[in-house]
């Protein structure tokens, strides 16, 4: 009898210790049955300063907000500023020539259908600390380190 009690006590203690140990999951330490506080939503960066590209093929990140900008079959708000004819008034950089190329490398008269949905490649940035670090080194640094 005594040994049974001892074993039960031991397992309960072990279970308690195990349960208390924080296991890092994506949803955080909040118990399953409870609803944790949602993290605050960071603001979209809107400072209008074009950002450095890490390599020449990188689609540049969008330096302005795009809230409510409609991109669908009916209208493309981005092109109302970034198209060839709009840039004089909007002061926006024109979409580059690659945006007029079809997959055979032919230049079309207007933006190619495969480049129509801008946010497929271009994204805004948020004013927040990155969740994970990044030790990317661009090619210039790699080359200069070799010398």
């Amino acid at each position, binding site marked *: 009898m005594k040994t049974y009690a001892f074993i039960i006590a031991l397992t309960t203690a072990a279970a308690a210790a195990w349960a208390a140990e924080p296991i890092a999951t994506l949803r955080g330490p909040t118990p399953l049955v409870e609803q944790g506080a949602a993290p605050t939503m960071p603001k979209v960066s*809107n*400072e*209008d300063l074009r950002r450095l590209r890490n390599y020449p093929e990188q689609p540049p990140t969008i330096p*302005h*907000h795009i*809230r*409510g900008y*409609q991109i669908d*079959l*009916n*209208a*493309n*708000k981005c*092109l*109302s500023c970034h*198209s060839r*004819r*709009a840039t004089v*008034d*909007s*002061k926006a950089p024109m979409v580059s020539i690659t945006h007029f190329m079809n997959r055979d490398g032919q230049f079309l008269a*207007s933006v190619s259908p495969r480049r129509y949905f801008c946010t497929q490649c271009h994204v805004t940035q948020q004013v927040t600390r990155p969740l994970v670090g990044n030790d990317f080194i661009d090619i210039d640094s790699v080359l200069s380190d070799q010398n």
Partner: protein
Amino acid sequence: MWSLAKEYWGVIRRPSVHFSLGFLTFGGFIAGIIFWGGFNTALEITNTEAFCVSCHEMYDNVYQELKPTIHYTNRSGVRATCPACHVPHEWTNKIARKMQASKEVWGKIFGTINTREKFLAMRRELAEREWARLKANNSLECRNCHDFGYMDFTRQSPRAASAHEEFLVSGEKTCIDCHKGIAHELPDMTGVPGWQ
């Protein structure tokens, strides 16, 4: 028949014997106020958002699209209702708009946009009427709330400030030239200047 009509005409023409001229004038004055008031109240009711969205044509399409936009919910809690953007506040304009609204009652009866498909098919035409109206009155409704004389350009984003400085101050463009589709989804924009 004709003699009967003549008799009544005589009654109407005969000067009043029971009421003084003063009473009649005053009574007419009071009645005028009551009718004028009633007219105003009727206008007041038709000037509410609840009235506008009482028609499913307005409720199902444009109202649902307004909800996620900045004019329905924002950090300051000030919001724009349908009549704020669509019915001019000035008295004369108000009447003119109300006369045009009769066309909507016509549209309701004959079901010009009573399904989603019909609405989408007609949307470009409806939007164009609104653009033309706002262009003609220099975006009066927008300026009722947003007076650029009080806009602090230094507090705006550089993109907004430079556009406003160049085109708004000079009067070259008006709000609706640049801010189409701020409250609802846009129709097919092919051919609209500045769009493609």
